């Protein structure tokens, strides 16, 4: 009853946003959940009205009505048979709507939850992986399987506009199938408290038309940087490569997010600030202010010029 009373409020909130809203589905799985939500809302609203009516009768009704309400058959039907039928129907409906997929997905993407970012790996048909982080590109209209793991604590993967949420549990692999019906940017958020800057652990799913996605995947398989790229020398000498990898160079760290194409991501620091040279420089020198508690130490040792060189190099990786 309390949740029913809070619903209108939630509906009003959901109306504000389309990038991250379970009530404005942009994919098949999210649409199923939305349907289920509306069914639940309708049925439970009806039940609420019946209960309130019975309550009113019990207090204000005639002696006759009250005698009827307290009869054995009224309790058996209203209190046992009715809830059993309604709940069974809702359960059956829910299970049918959320039945597991039987077809193969067009694409498999591995996502590993880490404190406090997302490691993303596109598994290609030839078995190789494209490494990325904090932004996931998918083709519109194709089923995509997300293979969800965690390397530290429990996280939860949730893109409300595309589907339900699923926990990422250390030592366990969960699978989630999603499909975007129309192009767009859909925001995802860690939905299980995972310590410190949990609230700043987000990501974006970018749904591209199939041809665009194919072109991007082709391009993403090729490194954009070499060790000769200007600025890489400072990046490497500052030790950045011990935590961050950049394809095509000697930087191969796996402690922090892969930066091979960091410049093309719309957002940085796990979708907490827009990607730009200035923001990258801020995050290097002053990251604890922008994302308090994150595991990247502030590199106050670097001169402003060094920081700027590194930021400019990274912003060009696209």
């Amino acid at each position, binding site marked *: 009853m309390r949740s029913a009373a809070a619903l209108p409020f939630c509906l009003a909130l959901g109306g504000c946003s389309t990038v991250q809203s379970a009530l404005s589905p942009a994919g098949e799985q999210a649409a199923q959940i939305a349907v289920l939500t509306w069914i639940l809302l309708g049925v439970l609203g009806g039940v609420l009205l019946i209960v309130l009516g019975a309550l009113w009768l019990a207090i204000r009704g005639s002696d006759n009505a009250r005698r009827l309400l307290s009869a054995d058959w009224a309790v058996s039907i209203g209190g046992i048979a009715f809830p059993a039928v309604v709940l069974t129907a809702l359960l059956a409906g829910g299970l049918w709507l959320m039945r597991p997929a039987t077809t193969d997905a067009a694409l498999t993407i591995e996502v590993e939850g880490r404190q406090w970012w997302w490691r993303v790996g596109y598994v290609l048909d030839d078995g190789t992986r494209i490494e990325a982080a904090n932004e996931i590109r998918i083709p519109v209209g194709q089923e995509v399987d997300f293979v969800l793991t965690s390397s530290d604590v429990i996280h939860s993967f949730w893109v409300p506009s595309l589907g339900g949420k699923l926990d990422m549990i250390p030592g366990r692999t969960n699978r989630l199938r999603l499909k975007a019906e129309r192009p767009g940017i859909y925001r995802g958020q860690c939905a299980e408290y995972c310590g410190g800057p949990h609230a700043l652990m987000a990501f974006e799913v970018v749904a591209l038309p199939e041809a665009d996605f194919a072109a991007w995947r082709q391009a993403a398989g090729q490194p954009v940087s070499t060790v000769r790229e200007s600025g890489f020398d400072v990046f490497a000498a500052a030790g950045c490569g011990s935590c961050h990898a950049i394809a095509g160079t000697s930087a191969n*760290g796996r402690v922090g997010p892969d930066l091979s194409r960091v410049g093309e991501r719309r957002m940085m620091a796990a979708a907490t600030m827009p990607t730009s040279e200035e923001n990258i420089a801020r995050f290097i020198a002053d990251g604890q202010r922008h994302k308090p508690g994150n595991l990247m130490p502030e590199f106050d040792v670097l001169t402003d010029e060094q920081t700027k060189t590194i930021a400019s190099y990274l912003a060009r990786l696209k």
Partner: protein
Amino acid sequence: MPSARKSALTIRLSGRRILIGLGSLVSLGLVGAGMFAWLGIYNVAASVGHFYVVDRILRFGMENSVKARAPDIVPPDLTDPNLIRLGAAHYYAGCAYCHGSPDTPISPIAHSMLPPPPDLGGVERWKDQELFWLVRNGLKYTGMPAWPGPSRDEEVWAAVAFLRAMPGMNRAQYTRLALGDVEIAAQSGEEIATGEGPSDAVQACARCHGGGAKGPESDLVPVLHGQPADMMVQALRDYAAGRRPSGIMQAATSGLTEREMVQLATYYAGLTPLRPEGAPGETDSRVERLVAEGDAARNIPGCVQCHDNRALPLYPRLAGQSARYLEGRLTAWRAGLRGTSATDAIMAPIAGRLTPEEISRIAQHFARQPAAGESAVR
């Protein structure tokens, strides 16, 4: 009636009256104490000293306080020459003025303090832990200062180790320990001409860190030969500003000017790196991997990306560094030492993720590597 007459002649005790009586006594005492301080009745002159009885009471209280508060910890091996040498060099700079040494008597100025600083020949009566507590915390109202770097217990133990070794030491033994046997090369013509040579300041550094072709006197002290100058200047600034806690180095650097810091750093940066002691030894693939790649699952980055010769000169080079120094530094971070320097912010969390065994093996690994050349990037 007898009882009625008796009650008329005596004051009947009641809770209220007891309270009033006590209250009056306390107020009277406070007023008296206030007057005593206000009118300057007490003579604070150090020249006058304490009454014999007061002196005995103060001493009694002090001794019991130290005994009660000394920590219940196991001291390190206080006969370790590395500890004793480091303690000796610090004693020479920080303690000898007041407490005297086999080389110098207690300064007459220090001796006129109240209480006069004791000659430390008599430290036998304190247990190791009590001496440690005294050196670390100092003594109120006596002029005995607390250790400037409050979280550097291993430095305090070095001082304690030296205090244990000093009684019976002759002058030659003491000066060799405290000053080292370092000959700093003569100043260049330009330095002599300008009077801006680094030699005086270097001499102070060289007592612990060595100089020329000679390495540090103690394994607990880092080798500075051939380290990047930028890194050393920043370290000196951090020590002087108290951003990097160390009772020894804060004292050694507080008087240095920026110019002297640069000169010192340049001097040591220009020295030829020392040959590592001992052979490369057996290789341990687990440690090699940790050093080269780190362990991503535990958020440990590799060491060499910041600490080999290709890294920026802001970072120290670890090849050929003293294993005990490296282990001590990492262990202190792991135990929670948090300076406010920029490098502490980077290394302290990483050190905290290493196991003590890994710390020890990493330190051994770098100590056996031959140090080499200059940074590729400036």
